[in-house]
């Protein structure tokens, strides 16, 4: 069992050292949130403030978003998935490798608070504590202990890179990888349904979208200065929540992250209408794996699959 307190202390030590030695101007990590089971991104530029940094099973956000477009030397706390997004952004020249110090933390999964909220029937959780493999939640009229492994985020259940593939400083011991994680079970389930069933499913889910763009804004790969949604000359797709426009927004966003998405799960987690966006993003991962034998965010030398080609690429979809 890994000692969470040790990791937290080590993170603070590392941050203090980096800031004191002026190796970085800013450290981005997690701090305790204002509600149970929540953490918030934390920006430390003073070595005296490092005790704000926290590490626990609710450190779910993908912080690599905050590196884009910032011209400072930054130290960043990164789990496996976060480090992979950083790699993708480095290969796409959005982050300067020389300017970032990646503090990698091997992660065995973060907790999905929405699953826990559903488990207590929507009653308000007033206190929560994760110790080892147990989650204790307390509310006005209840107190429950739950096994952590049943309440991990969906993206963690199929994670095959729990150890950051790249980092400058590793905090904590490596965790064993789950090589048997078959990540595409949900996608295969949907693929087995008829096109009509799939259409009915997606129109129902995406019909709830209110076009808040939380999914786009939280994704580290959506860094375009002008998003296609805001383009008016030409006006590609409308901004209303007309079903056609909404579905196309999600289709196009997922096309844009195809081959780059590392399945950090942030988009699904932040959606206020609880749409399962991973049903779409995971499909692009599957397409890219099966067609081009590619997995995003593993090596700094890789070339994104949609930015290259092979003469012998499969073309079974072409009419003979």
């Amino acid at each position, binding site marked *: 069992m890994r000692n969470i307190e040790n990791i937290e202390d080590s993170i603070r030590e590392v941050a203090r050292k980096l800031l004191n030695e002026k190796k970085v101007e800013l450290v981005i990590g997690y701090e305790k949130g204002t509600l149970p089971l929540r953490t*918030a*991104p934390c920006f430390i530029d003073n070595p005296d403030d490092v005790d704000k940094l926290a590490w626990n099973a609710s450190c779910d956000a993908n912080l690599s978003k905050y590196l884009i477009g910032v011209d400072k030397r930054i130290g960043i706390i990164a789990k496996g998935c976060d480090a992979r997004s950083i790699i993708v952004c480095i290969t796409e020249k959005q982050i300067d490798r020389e300017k970032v110090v990646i503090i990698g933390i091997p992660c065995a999964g973060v907790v999905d608070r929405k699953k826990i909220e559903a488990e207590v029937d929507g009653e308000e959780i007033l206190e929560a504590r994760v110790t080892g493999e147990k989650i204790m939640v307390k509310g006005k009229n209840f107190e429950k202990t739950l096994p952590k492994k049943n309440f991990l985020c969906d993206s963690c259940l199929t994670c095959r890179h729990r150890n950051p593939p790249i980092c400058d400083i590793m905090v904590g011991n490596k965790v064993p990888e789950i090589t048997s994680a078959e990540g595409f079970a949900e996608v295969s389930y949907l693929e087995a349904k008829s096109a009509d069933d799939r259409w009915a499913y997606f129109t129902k889910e995406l019909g709830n979208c209110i076009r*808040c763009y*939380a999914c786009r804004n939280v994704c580290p790969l959506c860094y375009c200065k002008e998003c296609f949604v805001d383009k008016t000359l030409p006006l590609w797709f409308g901004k209303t929540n007309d079903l056609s426009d909404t579905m196309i927004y999600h289709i196009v966003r997922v096309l844009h992250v195809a081959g780059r998405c590392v399945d950090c799960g942030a988009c699904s987690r932040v959606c206020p209408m609880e749409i399962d966006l991973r049903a779409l993003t995971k499909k692009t991962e599957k397409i890219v794996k099966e067609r081009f034998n590619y997995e995003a965010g593993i090596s700094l030398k890789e070339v994104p699959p949609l930015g290259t080609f092979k003469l012998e690429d499969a073309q079974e979809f072409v009419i003979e």
Partner: protein
Amino acid sequence: MKAKIMDKNELQDFVDELTKDYKVFAPVKMNRIFRLKEISKGKEACLGYQNTRQPPKEIFFPQTEILFTYKMDKEGVELEDIPLPNEKRVLFGIRPCDARALVFLDRFFSSGDYKDISYLEKREKTTIIGLACNSPLSTCFCTSLGGSPFGKEGMDLLLEDINEKYLIEILSEQGAKLVEHIPWLKDAENADFERAKKISEEAESTIKLKIAVEGLRKKFDSMFDAPLWDQIYQKCIGCGVCTYLCPTCWCFDILDEGTPTCGRRVRIWDTCQFPLFTLEASGLNPRPSGKERMRQRVMHKFNYFPKDFGELVCVGCGRCVQACPVNLDIREIIKAIMNT
């Protein structure tokens, strides 16, 4: 004060009666969240909820609303108005904070020379039945802002859960007319009122956050250039969640969609958190970064609006606190400002 009473197990029948004469919108469970949807049977409504994810503004001021359609040919332009809904409606089971927010929206959409017909028509034809909060959430802070868990503003009827029964307080003519259609409702007695008062006091006492609103406005006046904003905004990702889920946010954008010969004009929600909100044609953006935009949001709710209209325009529902993807907590911002 006139009021009726009904047993808890009569609730479904009550709603069924409503569906006979009115189009009823009630909280409905969808996956893991509650939303206001049109229902056709009493059993679809679900009152065992904390609050709906989306505020009631979506019923009167939807995310997308077509204003009119146009057709253009060599004879000229033809405009066609969208017919407004004609039927009587009931909005059932909303919380007092949300009902209070509707009062703000009413004021906004009927201010000045131009009255927003599409909003006001729907509003006039809707009877609001509220549901008092017996157990406010830890994220609720309505009491500091002029509201209360058993508040009555903005409603025609208020349902109060007094254990085995619901007390139905009649707050307006429209509400009185509605209960006349349901003759089997009994009159409430003094004991019922006593019980409701007790539960109301207990509920109010659970709300811990107290904001000294007078002091707050004065502090804000000197806060425009404070370094506080540099610290607060860093984690904000600039999405629209806080504003879209806010019951008192009413900003909208108007767009034309279609071809030059045929199309429509639509109104959609807009948010001050998007960079495009203040982007000018010259390319200048007076609110270039998240810092200015976050400052604008907080200032508008707690400083500019009160200065112009005398009231804070936040109702303390706590939706932005719960739904913010990065846990940017407006309560913390207020506390930080009070402490400067």
